[in-house]
């Protein structure tokens, strides 16, 4: 099973993403903060990382950037989840090393399309 790390502080969103991914045959590793996400990413063999931009502590952008500095994660796609794009969000997301992003609300079909495309 392909492992996906999901970094999301909102339990409802986490649950929703989990349902969608699990239903499509992925294994979910869920963490609620950027710090824990980086730690997990470094020690796990992952197929993909999904990170929420708005996180307590270090935000999703910073998390993505730090993960991109980890050699082991070089080939792992990172997808950001953003609420309605904020000023400059798009550029910041891509320049932080993310491979793509999708906007809330999370539409199961759209998410899966985006994920399949990225992997």
């Amino acid at each position, binding site marked *: 099973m392909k492992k996906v790390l999901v970094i999301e502080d909102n339990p*409802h969103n986490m649950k929703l993403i989990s349902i969608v991914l699990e239903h499509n045959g992925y294994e979910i590793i869920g963490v609620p903060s950027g710090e824990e996400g980086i730690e997990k990413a470094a020690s796990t063999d992952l197929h993909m990382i999904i990170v929420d931009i708005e996180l307590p502590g270090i935000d999703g952008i910073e998390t993505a950037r730090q993960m991109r500095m980890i050699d082991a994660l070089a080939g792992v796609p990172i997808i950001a989840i953003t*609420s*309605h794009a904020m*000023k400059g*969000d*798009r550029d910041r997301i891509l320049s932080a090393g993310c491979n793509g992003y999708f906007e809330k609300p999370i539409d*199961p079909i759209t998410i899966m399309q985006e994920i399949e495309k990225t992997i």
Partner: protein
Amino acid sequence: MIKSLAKRWNWVLTALGLGAVYWVIESYLDVHVLGFRNTFLERLLAPDLNEAWLRLVIISLLVGFGAFMQRHVRQLNRANAEVAASEERYRTLFESSPISLFEYDLTDLMRECQGTQLRESGSVRALAAKHREKTQRCAEHVTLLDCNDYALELFGADNVDQLSSGLTAIISPESFDTLVDLIATLAGGGSRFTGDAISYDRSGKRLRTEINAQVIPDREDSRVRMIFHVDDLTYLKTTEDDLRQATDELEHRVVERTASLAESEERFRELAENIDEVFWLVDAGGNKVYVSPGYERFWQRPREELYSDSLAWLQGVHPDDREQTRKSLDQLISGRYDVEFRIVRPDGSERWVRDRGIPVKDSAGAVTRVAGITEDITFLKTANIRLQEMDRLKSMFIAGTSHELRTPLNSIIGFTSVILEGWAGEIAPEQREYLEIVHSSGKQLLQLVNDVIDITKIEAGKLDVSAEEFELRELVKEAAATVRVQAEHKNLQLNVECRPLIMFGDRRRLLQCVINLLTNAVKYTEKGSIDFISEPAGDLVELSVQDTGIGIREENIPLLFEPFIRLDEPAAARERGSGLGLYLVSKLMSEVLGGTVDVKSTYGVGSRFTLRVPVKARAK
């Protein structure tokens, strides 16, 4: 004839006369005194010495008497001739004088008046005035003795008889006062009189005259005769009257104007002295001509300083604003002087000021003065600052609230999606139906929240604008994909015709606009088709969405792009949007994409919305 003959031959006649007298005397002496018998002739031939002496004496006496008589007669003749000549001259003067002359006998009038004076005590003037009717009647019976040709001509008469009798001919009853003056003058022993009168000529024309009268020196009889000179001053008087009237009128107007000027000045002064705004006047050279007392109250500086140094007020301007204010004074004459600055008052308080100047021009268009007003706008300024702060807080509040609204909405939409996908187990058809309502309502609410956020950002100038190169056809395909399912569901034909075109600009926002128009088209069309057409138009591209929907009434078209305007149409009421869609499109077009949106519609037939967007957006 006989007279002149007598004159010429008077010597001869005298001699003959004397001879005859001598003859008579001689004859008498001869017969009765001397007792001679001889005749005169005999005695002449044979003279007696005594007789001879006697005769000689008699003859000498006679000759002497004759000479004396002759001389006397000659003198008498000369005097008579002189009187005749003088009278002739006087008559000629009277008759042919180029001024009007009347000769009156005023004896009866004067006698009557003085008689009245004897009966009643009082001055002649007072009595004459008192017995008006009687005086007037007497004046009517005064005898007009004579008048000259000029006088006749003046009164339009051919001869004296045609003139009305009495003094009333020249002094009409209207001028009774003049008549009384005349009587008083004469009664007082005066011989000269001058006065104004109204006279009427034979045709009844009113004349305004000046009367000059002179008493003719008394001759044998003791009658009062007067020569009147009547001067027609009608033209002069009328002109004088007109002149006086004009002068009076002018004077009146000057008085009136002066009064209104004074009133206006008073009003201006009242206003200028009492308003809190400072009113000022400078001449073309920039020197202060007037500054209202408000200056002292507001700036808390003495007005006098401005008259010695017209820029003294600058010292009261906040140091940070002073230089800018000084520079803007260059605009005084051009009329563009309108500045806002702060002042710092001696008590340390700071006020905001708006100072404006309006040039005052003379008839040639040259600026002679600049009138200005300085207002305290502190309240406005602080209110404005507070307003801006409130606006910022409002935007923050809306953005914040919207974000918080979105989180639960995401859950609602996400989880209903998952359930509808069947990933959470089988659901009954009825449950599906209800869940679909929940799902679509959630999306609608989310759309509203997103629109509100966008509009708030646009209005606050904080919308994230990006610019990138993109293929228009791809964008249109993407937009069409979002409405295709819905269109098919309603059995609408969706035709998209878009030629390939590389554009540069904010793709996301353009996509938002196109989706918005397509969504609306699907929403408001029950049957028929929706066409998307793209057409290049110079530097622009026209993107049109044409539908066969309900259309829009002409009077509602201007309301379409207003926020929260829901057209009161039954069909529209069934479909609920955010009410912000088209408002957002127009905002995005004008503020972000640099384009326009417009609509052509026929009610009941369909609408065509067109976006005109620059192919290459100008880099911001």
